[in-house]
């Protein structure tokens, strides 16, 4: 009898794949069945297990032969301040950001207890039929405890099945809108600071997210940049244009005037002093 019970226990552990997981988890939610051509949403969320969290750093793996990355939505997510917004490279999407003040969960009167915290919604386009998994290759979650303590958690991926058929748009992406207006701020370095003067900027795009920023100074070409961008003060003021481009290549431009070392009012003052000196010299010379 004992042997049978032991065998049953061991078999059940192996067969049913019982996983020891933690109270906290990070998960990927995607609809299981998708049609070729569909653009669909994948929600990345955290169940913090009752802990306040404020920072995340994630790398998501996806089957790049089946689907392509099409952007992200931040509207429903709690991460509004990106250290690095979702970007794709070699079949992986990486993103990191903070939630100032931390968050415990989502408060929903229709749910018992707190709901999982939506971090962001990734968008993918189904290319061909097949099955695959979207999973985490890295997930770091830090507590809002003033020490940046790591939250022990489990990772839950999601299986997707792409089938041939008439495409039905579920995510609904027809991104024609340009990114939202944004401000560029100039942070001037103090005299003995190791941090240089820089410009900072940040904006959102409701439909597909910001793919990249480009900047252009007078007489220079556009170049890819990310906030903050160090700037050096020239002798005269300099105009810098920042272009925010979304995943559908819609863009918005904003600009900032970086004050020069020689400001107009100082130049005017120098001119006045110079003219006064000349006039005084002539006056003295005439009197002598």
């Amino acid at each position: 009898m004992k042997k049978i019970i032991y065998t049953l226990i061991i078999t059940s552990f192996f067969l049913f794949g019982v996983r020891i997981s933690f109270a906290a988890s990070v998960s990927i939610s995607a609809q299981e069945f998708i049609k070729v051509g569909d653009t669909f949403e994948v929600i990345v969320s955290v169940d913090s297990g009752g802990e306040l969290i404020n920072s995340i750093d994630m790398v998501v793996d996806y089957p790049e032969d089946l689907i392509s990355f099409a952007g992200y939505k931040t509207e429903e997510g709690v991460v509004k301040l990106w250290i690095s917004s979702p970007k794709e490279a070699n079949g992986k999407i990486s993103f990191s950001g903070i939630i100032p003040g931390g968050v415990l969960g989502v408060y929903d009167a229709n749910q018992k207890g707190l709901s999982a915290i939506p971090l962001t919604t990734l968008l993918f386009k189904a290319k061909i039929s097949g099955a695959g998994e979207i999973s985490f290759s890295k997930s770091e979650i830090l507590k809002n405890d003033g020490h940046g303590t790591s939250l022990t958690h489990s990772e839950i991926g999601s299986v997707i099945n792409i089938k041939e058929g008439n495409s039905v748009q579920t995510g609904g992406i027809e991104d024609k809108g340009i990114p939202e207006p944004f401000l560029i701020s100039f942070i001037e370095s103090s005299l003995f600071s190791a941090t240089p003067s820089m410009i900072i900027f940040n904006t959102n795009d409701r439909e597909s997210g910001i793919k990249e920023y480009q900047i252009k100074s007078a007489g220079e070409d556009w170049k890819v940049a990310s906030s903050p961008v160090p700037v050096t003060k020239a002798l005269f003021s300099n105009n810098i244009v920042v272009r925010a481009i979304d995943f559908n290549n819609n863009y918005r431009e904003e600009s900032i005037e970086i004050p020069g070392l020689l400001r107009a009012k100082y130049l005017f003052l120098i001119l006045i002093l110079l003219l006064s000196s000349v006039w005084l010299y002539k006056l003295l010379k005439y009197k002598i």
Partner: protein
Amino acid sequence: MAKNFSKKFLVFLLLLSLFSYRNTSFALILVDTENVSISAQVGNTLPVNPGGGGSSGGSVGIPKTSVRFSGFAYPNGTVTLLKEGIELATVSSDSSGAFSITLEESFNKNILYSLFATDSAGNRSLLINYPIVVYTGYLTQLSGIRFPPTINIDKTEVKVGDYLTVSGYAVPNEDIELVIEGPEKKVFTLTTNNKGFYTATLPLGTLAKGDYLVSAKYSNDTRISKLVSFTIGDNNIAVIKNTTNIPGDCNVDHIINIVDFSILAFWYGKLNPPKCVDTNSDNTINLTDFSILAFYWTG
């Protein structure tokens, strides 16, 4: 007897494993959450938002969609509400610290609200966030909010064997804990007076030299106040008003916002960061530094 127990235990394990399969996982850690409750009821048509910001008067017969936050801050202080990081309303708390803010909403949506409180001495609390699912036509109420106590200290360095005075505001006549963490840990308990004020001169006699953090919290709560740093060393050095005790506040404006975040972002992954940027003094700027900055965020 022992054999019988062993059998029962094995059967229990078997059942547990089968149950775990159904749920794919089981929790190993039990944690407490704060005592905040949420409810929704069909909204009325009365004007809301005593803190300002909403429209007055109502469309007769059409229920209003609104969100109400209530709880306790500090006696005769203020509470400010932010929606998606934008300040919307500030209300006063009464002499018991009670406050209530009602905000009219328009959409069925998941919205990130933040609150901070200021005590009567002008000390600001940390930011508290509430992502809430708002339902059209309903008044969603979040009650039981309680801001952790505010905290101030009188010295940045305390001579070994000397005293540190800690003070601040909380809800009147409540038990609070002052927690000192560092090379050694010590917890002091006290009760606030009927005006919500507390002050304690803590004997640090047995604590070893080193860097410490002190924080305050309600005895029956998990949320903590700001962590304030001090050193136990050879001298007594009083707190100077114009200096900052906030990690990451390189421009010493006593505010942690996008400017400090950007300075940190500039040094992210770079070698030899300035001391003020490196919030945990490990000579590296990584996610931990961002987390510490996010903890002290004021906006």
